[in-house]
């Protein structure tokens, strides 16, 4: 298999022309940290963008950065931190979860998979902060959409389409995105000995408070014990609420939340360093990265449905482990080996049409046999396929990484 390691975007059209004229199919890759995510692909060559790296524009006062697709997220975060800024969304690092090292993920990878960590509920997703894209379509044409400004409604918002398209529409060579100031202080309020049902109420009340909670998660005792944080290893189920902002404000809001929930269970407060460790643990799904089970589900659901849903899938799948992020709107579930098809029917049918389940980690064979992404209704599948037809009529880019090709 050919492997094209490019160092300049000018090399992309030639490779695409080669693929178009010889009917070759290409895998679009960065550092391969998420190669095991999605449907396994049958390709003739890999177009590797990891050599396409570097920051092209960064204007802290304008809250905007443009960088090449192969630039690592870790490098971008380091550059931003030097100006006391951070990405406007929280990028998770699924490297360790998917059997790779941490810190490998690239900008191209994080935006085209539209993955977001715990701060998703307040800060928004990667897609919310992608302002502009340069690249090439599967037609081999140079492609540009969006701009560098925050407010732009000129033409269709194709950045949204590119975000989360898993490289099936275009090869992105650089991305322009919004950045934000780093909060002065971060703290976490913990409420211990909480049942699954009670966690939903606490997270709801926290998110409905005036205290601008930026992340909310629930860990059963077995998961809390894995965080490696001394305060959390007592083997107790816990709700965690993240607070960030100017120091005085954070202190005030933490105090208010501690008071509000002290009647529900023992309350505790984590300061900066431990907070950082905890939310990285949750966002990166570290609880399951060294897990015995090969099968990990990421389930997006209306938050108030979470307790009943988790009860239903836990009852049907013995040995299932889980935790909740996004104030209950995200269920991470680890399904033990030996359960047929990683419990796909149980996981998806119990949603009753409200939400979707993605099989984030599973052996290659299983990801071929069942769809890692939730199957779509025929009308949406048809629209999606015709969108692909417009961008990549010969299906040369990451073919079938998301869904098999359907007749339209």
């Amino acid at each position: 298999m050919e492997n094209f390691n490019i160092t300049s975007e000018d090399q992309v059209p030639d490779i695409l022309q080669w693929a178009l004229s010889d009917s070759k199919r290409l895998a679009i890759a960065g550092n391969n940290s998420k190669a095991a995510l999605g449907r396994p692909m049958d390709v003739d060559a890999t177009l590797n963008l990891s050599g396409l790296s570097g920051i092209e524009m960064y204007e802290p006062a304008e809250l905007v950065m443009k960088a090449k697709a192969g630039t690592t997220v870790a490098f971008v975060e380091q550059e931003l931190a030097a100006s006391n800024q951070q990405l406007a969304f929280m990028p998770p690092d699924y490297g360790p979860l998917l059997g790779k090292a941490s810190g490998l993920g690239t900008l191209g990878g994080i935006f085209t998979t539209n993955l977001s960590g715990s701060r998703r509920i307040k800060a928004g997703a990667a897609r919310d902060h992608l302002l502009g894209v340069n690249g090439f379509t599967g037609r081999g044409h140079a492609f540009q959409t969006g701009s560098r400004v925050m407010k732009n409604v000129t033409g269709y918002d194709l950045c949204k389409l590119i975000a989360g398209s898993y490289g099936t529409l275009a090869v992105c060579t650089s991305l322009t995105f919004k950045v934000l100031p780093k909060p002065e202080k971060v703290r976490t309020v913990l409420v211990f000995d909480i049942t699954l049902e009670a966690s939903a109420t606490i997270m709801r009340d926290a998110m409905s408070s005036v205290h601008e909670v930026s992340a909310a998660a629930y860990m059963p005792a077995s998961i809390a014990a894995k965080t490696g944080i001394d305060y959390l290893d007592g083997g107790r189920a816990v709700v965690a609420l993240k607070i960030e902002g100017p120091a005085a404000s954070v202190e005030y809001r933490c105090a208010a939340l501690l008071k509000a929930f002290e009647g529900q269970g023992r309350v505790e407060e984590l300061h900066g360093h431990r907070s950082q460790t905890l939310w990285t643990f949750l966002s990166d799904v570290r609880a399951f990265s060294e897990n015995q089970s090969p099968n990990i589900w990421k389930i997006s659901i209306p938050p108030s449905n979470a307790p009943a849903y988790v009860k239903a899938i836990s009852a049907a799948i013995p040995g299932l482990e889980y935790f909740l992020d996004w104030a209950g709107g995200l269920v991470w579930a680890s399904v033990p080996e030996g359960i047929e098809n990683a419990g796909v029917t149980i996981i998806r049918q119990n949603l009753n049409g409200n939400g979707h389940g993605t099989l984030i980690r599973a052996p290659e064979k299983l990801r071929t046999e069942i769809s890692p992404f939730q199957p779509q209704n025929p009308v949406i599948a048809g629209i999606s396929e015709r969108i692909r037809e417009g961008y990549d009529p010969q299906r040369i880019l990451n073919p079938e990484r998301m869904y098999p090709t359907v007749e339209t």
Partner: protein
Amino acid sequence: MKMPLPDQAVLEKRDMLVRRLKEIVQNPDGVIDQEAGLRAFECDGLSAYRQLPMVAVLPETKQEICEILKFCKAEGVNVVPRGAGTSLSGGALPLADGVLLGLAKFSKIIDVDYDNRCAVVEPGVTNLAITDAVKADGFYYAPDPSSQIACTIGGNIAENSGGVHCLKYGLTTNNVLGVEMITMDGDIVQFGGKHLDAEGYDIMGVITGSEGLLGVITEVTVRLLKSPQYISAQLIGFPSSEQAGDCVGKIIGAGIIPAGMEMMDYYAIHAAEEFCHAGYPLDVEALLIVELDGPEIEIEHNNNAIEKIAKECGATVIKLSQSEEERLTFWAGRKAAFPAIGRISPDYMCMDGTIPRSQLPKVLARMGELSEHYGLRVANVFHAGDGNLHPLILFDANIPGDLEKCEQFGADILRLCVEVGGVLTGEHGVGVEKRDLMNEMFSEDDLKQQQRLKCAFDPDGRLNPGKVFPILHRCAELGKMHVHNGALPFPDIPRF
């Protein structure tokens, strides 16, 4: 400005079309085919352009919408969807051979769900009605376009509407969880819902801001936020707009993201002050309104920081709102800026480019030169935090040639915005107004690529044709991989 030539074959069968539409729409008043009734729909907020629709329909059920769209598709009839008709870019401008599809009857709030902090509403619900419905419980819907009292959420989806609080809370696209839409084929589809990040492509993301070209919105799930504990505003006046622009950059550079940060120039300040006595200083060249929201302790901290920055930047006036009443008075002038300008000029046209903020002095200086060149005054209001300019060009439509001069001036301003790295429209949409300027920002290939998206939804181009794109390509032509040199394919495609 040219619109697609009306299809004579469609006009000839108008009587049959009206008769059949009356069979589809159950309410006898739901099909309007008389001129007097159609007048109400002849324009939207961009009233310089007017056109009577062939017929207007006001369906009351989703089933009726499905039937109307299927019928129009089968008969080869164009459809223009319309909410409240407040578009400032002509997005709802009717077509002479088209059906005007009004969604006004879809005005119910279906579900307020505090457990999931969202509301499900019909497309004809006004933006402000959502907040009004949840205000008593301490919630609100964040995007607040200045037309919020009248504009509908369906129209907000179509235009990806903004408002003064976008800097902190984002545009419509960042505040919507789900959209239900009816395709031109008459299929009802739901994208997203009460959960986050729908599976597959982010189709909801491209429908938002698609200006009615992809489908007809029938339900919207919006995110509700808790109303902030405390809100304050500061008025800050500067001897020059450069200093004001500098101050905006330094506030953000200091790590403060205000809820809203607005700038007005000399003309706008004077017009607004005369109109509603907001207490604006008249001896400054530029005025900032900086609004903060959140816990009181945080606001106090940030207000002090802003005051310090403003002084360093040379502010001559700094006034902090001492009460909710005073805060609203500060805003009254800004919110009345458009009618205030309307009082000092018979007509005005509002532009909507966005620029990188650092380019503000250059753009304002160049705008001054253009103002002299065209002999037309211009007043500026500016969403300073996110670089969205609203130059208001003053003209008199009764003076022959003034409208054309104004249009040229406006086009020059937008070209300037693109030239400095900005965009043609920040929140008002392309519509018909900026359609012919799209080539300033996009290459022909990029525009074709955008139109290929439409082919995935509406391959016959029935929905809102003549808007957004300066050249209508047929999907069959767009689908081709190669074009032969020399021979112009499809010589009859409409080029406006």
